[in-house]
């Protein structure tokens, strides 16, 4: 997993294995480690604290019930939980028959669009400072060519299909697909270094 070291990946897998054996202390530890980024993701996609909290509750209860099905060959624990969260959020958005309210063109812009009071912003900033990996990932994302980052963020956070992205950007479908693919591969490559 690019987000964390190999050692952290092993500990994550150990926590998941223990959760599969119904170990609540492991569940609590995994919550402490992952709830921040997962909640941030849910907030960005849903734009509503109450809904984001409900989504996160669904996700963690799903982690509890599905830990035994986690396959380390498919993905790291981090990516597994991120994609689980995204999927739950998309279910909620679909159920309400609306799209994500997020209006984001870039990661830099997004950091200034969060509606929050001063203390929340300070707290969020503290969290970011404490997480060097997250800072590094954001830096790598910001260094992607803007058209690749834009296509990835539209697909990831707004859950627009490649057809919808092509229509919104006025670009051929093949171009959009290539931007998403190249951006993800570049992201992976840069995070490895």
């Amino acid at each position, binding site marked *: 997993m*690019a*987000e964390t070291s*190999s*050692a952290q990946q*092993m*500990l994550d*897998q*150990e926590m998941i*294995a223990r959760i599969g*054996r*119904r170990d*609540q202390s492991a569940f609590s530890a995994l*919550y402490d480690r992952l*709830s*921040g*980024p*997962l*909640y*941030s993701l849910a*907030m*960005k996609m849903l734009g509503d*604290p109450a809904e984001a*909290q409900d989504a*996160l*509750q669904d996700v963690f*209860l799903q982690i509890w019930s599905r830990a035994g099905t*986690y396959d380390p*060959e*498919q*993905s790291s624990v*981090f*990516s597994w939980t*991120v*994609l689980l969260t*995204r*999927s739950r959020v998309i279910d909620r958005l679909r159920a309400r028959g609306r799209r994500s309210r997020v209006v984001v063109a870039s990661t830099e812009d*997004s950091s200034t669009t*969060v509606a*929050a009071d001063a203390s*929340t912003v300070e707290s*969020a*900033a503290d*969290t970011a400072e404490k997480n060097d990996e*997250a800072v590094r*990932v*954001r830096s790598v994302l910001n260094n992607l060519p803007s058209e690749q980052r834009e296509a*990835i*963020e539209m*697909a*990831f*956070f707004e*859950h627009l299909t*490649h057809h919808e992205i092509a229509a919104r950007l006025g670009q051929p479908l093949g171009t959009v*697909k290539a931007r*998403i*693919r190249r951006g*993800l*591969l570049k*992201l*992976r490559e840069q995070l490895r270094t």
Partner: protein
Amino acid sequence: MISEEQQDQAALYVLGLLEPHEAAAFESELNANAELRDIARELREAAGVVALAAPPQPPPASLKQRIMRELAMETKRVVPMPTRRGSFGWVPWAIAAGLAIFCGLLALDRVRLKRELAEIRAADPLMQTTFFTLAPSAPAPADAKATVAWQPGRQSGVIRISNLPAPQPGKDYQLWAVDAAHEDPISAGIIRVDKNGSAQVRFKSVKRAEHVKAFAISLEREGGVPKKEGPILLVGTA
């Protein structure tokens, strides 16, 4: 060789953007193509970290309490199976007996391992030994297991493995120590199992590991690797 079109499909697949019939067709292709699976995994990892582009927002402290409460209620909701006096009434008892035997064998395993370490301990009575029980995670068989007796003072240990089938040609099992002071797991060497899937090996850590939190066994290229690359098969803490 994976074509750009296949990579495009893989990228759309991990982002959940394929139509259901396209996703089903791509999954069939994935099942038949190991190289494509590797690409999909790489792309899935990249997609996962995109989440970190979201502005950090700590969840309220009350949410954890709420989830833990819900978890406790979920656990209580698991109603015990009603007692059945039908022809399969013996099944739960058979499972319980099997579990009891399994636990007994595990305990026996541990006792044997402890006995074998007694001699080493005698040479240095102050030496501390920590035991780690390693549990399987997919794709290891569910009954695979391992026990590690680790002596930090000597930076060495003994591992006993059972029910772990020999790896395919060109692969080896490698033991790793997860140490709090090191970012990456520390190699503790290659472990070779016999035809019954068992092994008992003395090992030494390649680097000094003072704060070992866990041991793990991964499937790696033949001869081992300096840094873990393959999937974890067994992992466990003390």
